[in-house]
C-alpha cells in the first residue's frame, strides 16, 4: 500500500455546491428546445444563460463585441433580467415546464476527469453570477453556447460604435437596448441580412451593406433590403471609420471612389464563430470545419461530443447560412440532443460514438470569406490599426513578431526576426505568436482578434486555416473579479496542506549542508 503525497491533489475533496441531473448552457433556440424536451421527458433540468451580462463586462466586449452601443438601461440588472425573460416566449414556457432557468449565470469552466485531472471523479462545471462562483457536478450536459462575433481591423475600428453583429442583434432583440440609429453593415451573408431586416423593422436606418466580394453572399436577403432602400455595395471595403469621443460618425469606403457614408454604428457581420471555449477547456476533440463556421467540437448526429455525457447543439456545434436564417434548425438540434441525453440518463449507458464528418455547402466556406476580408483589411490597415485592441498589436507587429510596446522594439537582431523566420523553424502556432506579440492576451480574452490573427497567420505563411493548430482557450472563459472567482468553501485538508511549491522535504535546504555524493536515501 503506497502512501499519499499530502501536497498533491490525491485525497482532496472538491467543494461541489450542487449536483445537476441535466445541465444546459445557453437559453437560445437550441438550449430552450433542449430544456423543454428534457422537461417533457420528466428529467430535472437546470438551464443557465449568462444574459443579462453585467454592463461593465459589456464594456470589455465580453462575450460579444458590444462596441459601447448598449444603452444606459443595461446598467439596470433587474430591468435587463425582465427584458431577457420577455425576449423569447419559450423562456416563460420553460419556467412553466419546471425548468430551473437561471438568467445572469455564466458557465466559465468545464472540467472532466482525464490524465492530469484524475483527481476529479466526475465532470464539473464552474458557474458564476458575477458576485460569486461555485462548482456543480452533472450527469449530462448540453452546451448550446451559440456564436460570437469575429473582428476586422480597419483604421478607426476601435471607435465606440464599431461592433459585432451578434452583439447588435442581442442588444436589439434580447435586451431592447441598442443605441444605434444609422447603421452601416460589413458583410452580406445571412447574419448580415437577418440583422439588417430586424434593425429596419425596429425603426433603425440601415445605410448600406458593404461586401468585399463581388456579389452579395445572401443575394435574396440583400434584394429584399435593397427594395427597402438599403444600398448594397459589393467589391467594397471600409477604408476607415471616422468620429470622435461619442464614436463613429461615418465611414469612408475604398473600391467605390472614396465614398463617405454617414452613420453612428458599423456592424461587423463578416462572419461569426461557434463558441467552443468550454469544449476546449474540457478537452473535447475539436476540428476546423470550413463549412461549420470554423473550429467546432466533433459530434455525432445527436450532438454527442468526445466526452461522455457532454453534448453540443445549435451554433456552437456549427454555423451555416441556413441555421442563421432559420432558428428552427438549431432548435431541432437542441431537441435531438435532449432526446439522446435523456436516453443516456435513463439507460445509464452511452451509445457508440460515430463522428459525422464534413457537411454543408461550398458557399458557407469561412476559409474563403475570412481570407477575403483579412486581405482587404491588410490593404487598409496602417501601423496604428490594432488588430488586438487590448494589447495594441497591429498587423505589421504580427508579421514582424514584434515585442509589445513596453519593450525595446528596434534592436537589430529583433528587427531581423519575423513571421517567416519563425515559420522556417516549423509550423507556426498562434499561441506562440500570442506569447511573443501579446495578441489575444488582453481582458477581452482574444474575442475581437482571435480569428483575425489566425487569418493573418494563414495568409502570411501560406497555411490553410484548417491546418493551423487551434490556439487554446483557458478557464475562466469569462473575466471574473478575484473576489468573485475566489474559492470560499476551501476544505480544511486543502488549506492545511497548501504549499507554494511541491513541498518536497529538503528541496530548499542550502546546497552546502548536503554531504557530497550522499544518496537521498542516506540523508533521509
Amino acid at each position: 500500500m503506497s502512501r499519499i503525497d499530502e501536497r498533491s491533489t490525491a485525497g482532496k475533496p472538491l467543494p461541489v455546491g450542487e449536483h445537476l441531473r441535466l445541465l444546459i448552457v445557453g437559453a437560445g433556440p437550441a438550449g430552450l428546445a433542449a430544456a423543454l424536451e428534457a422537461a417533457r421527458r420528466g428529467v430535472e433540468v437546470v438551464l443557465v444563460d449568462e444574459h443579462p451580462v453585467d454592463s461593465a463586462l459589456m464594456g470589455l466586449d465580453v462575450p460579444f463585441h458590444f462596441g459601447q452601443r448598449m444603452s444606459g438601461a443595461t446598467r439596470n440588472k433587474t430591468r435587463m433580467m425582465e427584458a431577457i425573460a420577455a425576449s423569447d416566449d419559450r423562456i416563460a414556457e420553460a419556467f412553466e415546464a419546471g425548468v430551473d432557468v437561471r438568467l445572469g449565470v455564466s458557465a466559465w469552466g468545464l472540467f472532466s476527469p482525464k490524465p492530469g485531472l484524475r483527481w476529479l471523479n466526475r465532470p464539473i462545471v464552474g458557474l458564476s453570477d458575477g458576485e460569486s462562483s461555485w462548482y456543480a457536478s452533472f450527469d449530462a450536459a448540453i452546451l448550446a453556447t451559440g456564436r460570437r462575433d469575429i473582428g476586422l481591423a480597419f483604421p478607426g475600428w476601435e471607435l465606440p460604435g464599431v461592433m459585432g453583429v451578434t452583439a447588435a442583434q442581442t442588444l436589439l432583440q434580447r435586451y431592447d437596448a441598442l443605441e444605434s440609429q444609422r447603421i452601416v453593415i460589413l458583410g452580406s451573408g445571412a447574419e448580415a441580412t437577418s440583422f439588417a431586416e430586424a434593425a429596419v423593422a425596429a425603426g433603425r436606418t440601415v445605410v448600406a451593406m458593404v461586401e468585399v466580394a463581388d456579389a452579395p453572399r445572401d443575394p435574396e436577403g440583400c434584394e429584399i433590403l435593397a427594395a427597402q432602400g438599403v444600398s448594397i455595395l459589393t467589391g467594397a471595403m471600409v477604408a476607415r471609420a471616422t468620429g470622435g469621443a461619442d464614436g463613429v460618425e461615418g465611414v469612408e469606403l475604398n473600391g467605390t471612389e472614396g465614398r463617405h457614408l454617414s452613420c453612428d454604428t458599423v456592424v461587423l457581420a463578416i462572419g461569426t464563430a461557434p463558441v467552443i471555449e468550454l469544449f476546449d477547456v474540457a478537452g473535447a476533440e475539436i476540428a476546423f470545419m470550413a463549412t461549420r463556421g470554423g473550429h467546432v467540437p466533433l459530434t455525432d448526429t445527436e450532438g454527442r461530443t468526445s466526452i461522455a455525457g457532454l453534448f453540443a447543439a445549435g451554433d456552437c456545434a456549427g454555423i451555416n447560412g441556413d441555421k442563421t436564417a432559420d432558428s428552427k434548425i438549431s432548435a431541432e438540434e437542441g431537441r435531438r440532443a435532449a432526446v439522446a441525453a435523456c436516453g443516456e440518463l435513463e439507460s445509464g449507458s452511452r451509445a457508440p460514438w460515430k463522428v459525422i464528418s464534413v457537411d454543408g455547402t461550398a458557399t458557407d466556406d469561412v476559409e474563403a470569406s475570412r481570407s477575403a476580408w483579412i486581405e482587404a483589411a491588410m490593404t487598409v490597415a496602417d501601423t496604428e490599426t490594432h488588430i488586438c485592441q487590448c494589447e495594441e498589436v497591429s498587423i505589421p507587429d504580427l508579421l514582424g513578431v514584434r515585442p509589445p510596446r513596453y519593450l525595446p522594439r528596434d534592436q537589430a537582431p529583433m528587427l531581423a526576426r519575423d513571421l517567416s523566420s519563425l515559420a522556417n523553424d516549423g509550423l507556426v502556432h498562434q499561441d506562440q505568436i500570442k506569447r511573443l506579440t501579446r495578441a489575444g492576451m488582453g481582458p477581452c480574452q482574444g474575442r475581437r482578434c482571435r480569428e483575425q490573427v489566425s487569418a493573418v497567420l494563414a495568409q502570411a505563411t501560406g497555411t490553410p486555416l484548417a491546418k493551423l493548430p487551434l490556439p487554446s482557450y483557458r478557464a475562466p472563459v469569462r473575466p471574473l473579479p478575484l473576489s468573485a472567482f475566489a474559492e470560499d468553501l476551501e476544505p480544511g485538508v486543502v488549506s492545511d496542506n497548501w504549499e507554494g511549491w511541491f513541498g518536497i522535504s529538503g528541496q530548499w535546504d542550502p546546497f552546502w549542508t548536503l554531504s557530497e555524493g550522499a544518496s537521498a536515501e542516506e540523508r533521509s
Partner: protein
Amino acid sequence: MNATNGTKGASVIIVGGGVSGLSSAWWLARAGVDVMVIEKGIVGWGASGRNGGGATHHQSPLFLEEQRLWPQMDELLRYPTEFQPKRIRIALSDQQVEEFKIGVDNTRGQGFPAEWLDPKQVRDLVPLAGNNVVGGVYYERGGHANPQRTVQAYAWALQDLGGRILQHTAVTGFQRRGGKVAAVETNAGVFSCDTLILAAGPQTGRLSALLDSEVPVTAARAEMIVTEPLPLMPIGGVDGNHLYGRQTLRGNLAYGGGPHEWLRPEDDAVAVRPSSPLARNVAKRLAELFPKAAHIRVIRSWAGVIENTPDGRPVIDRLPTAANAIVATMSSVGFGLSPATGRAISQLVIDGRCDFADLSSFRLSRFGNLSPDWREERGWLPPQTEDDDARAA
C-alpha cells in the same frame, strides 16, 4: 546561415528545447561549438514557458551565478527577457514569517543582503498589499523574467550564433559505439554527435533509460492564474502567502501554488496540462495577498508539467553508461537558474568541469540505492480513479 547547415549531426546534440537545453546550447555556441537542439514540439512549450518566472534560488550552488548573469542577459542574448531585479516576500501570518527564515539565512550566508520588513514598510513598497500584512522580506538580489520571451530569446540568440534547432522532431533512440553515444535517432533521421546532452524535462527519465541509466524523475501538473493588467508596482517581484509569481511588466498578476497532480509515466506531458478547479484556491490566496486588487479580473489560467527527482534537487551529471552523455534535470526549479545551468553544462562539455560552482550535490550517484518503489513510497502517484478500482477488482 551557419557553416554546418545541411550536415547530418553536430558536435553536441541537445535533446530538449526547454530553458536548460537552450541555455546550454547557447553557451556552447558562444564558445564556438557546433550545436544542435532537437525538440519534439516548439521551443519552451513545456514548463520552461509556463512557470512563475522567478530568479531567486538561494538554495542552489548556482545562486551566485544566477544573480550575476540575469542583469546581463538582455545584453548577452540581444533579445529582451523582461528581467526585473529584486524580490519581496509577504507574510500574512507569524508562521509564514517563520518560513521565510531559511531563505534569509541562505541568502545572507552567501553574502547577499536580505532585509526584514515590518507591515508598514511592506505596504510602502507594495501598493496592493493590505492591512493583513504581518511582515516581509526584501531581497536586493533575485528577481523575475518573462519565461516565454526568455525561451525564445535563447532560441533566437542560439540561431544567431549558428546553432541549429530542429522543432517537431521526436527522439526515438540512440546509436552507441564503444561506450559512447554515436548518434541520435529521430523521426527526421539519424544525427551523429560527439557529445549528447539530455535536457528533456519530463522525458528525461524515459530517454536516459534508453541509455541504461534511468534518471529517476516523475512529472506533475501544476497551474497558475493571470489577471488583467494593473498599474505597475515599484517592484513586480512580489509573492508570499504560499503563492509564487510576479506582476509582469505589462501589469498582469501571474500567480500559482497549491496541490500538484502527479502523472503516470506513460502520460504525454504536452497533452496533459488542463487547468484545474484549484485555480479558484489560487485566486483566494491572491486576493488575500493583494486585497486592493480584489476587484481585478482573472482572465486566464494555465498549467504546466514539471518533473522532480526523488529529493527535489537537480541532476547534472555524466551518465555512467555513456561516457559522452550529460543529463540535466533541474527538478522543478529550472527557469530562473537557466543562465547559470547552461553555462555550467557548457563548461562540463568543454573543460570537463565547472569552475564557478560546486555541482557535487547534483550527482546522479546519490540515487544509487534508490528503491524501485520510490514513487509509491513518496505517494508520487496520480489519484486513484474508478478505472484503477475496476482493474484492481
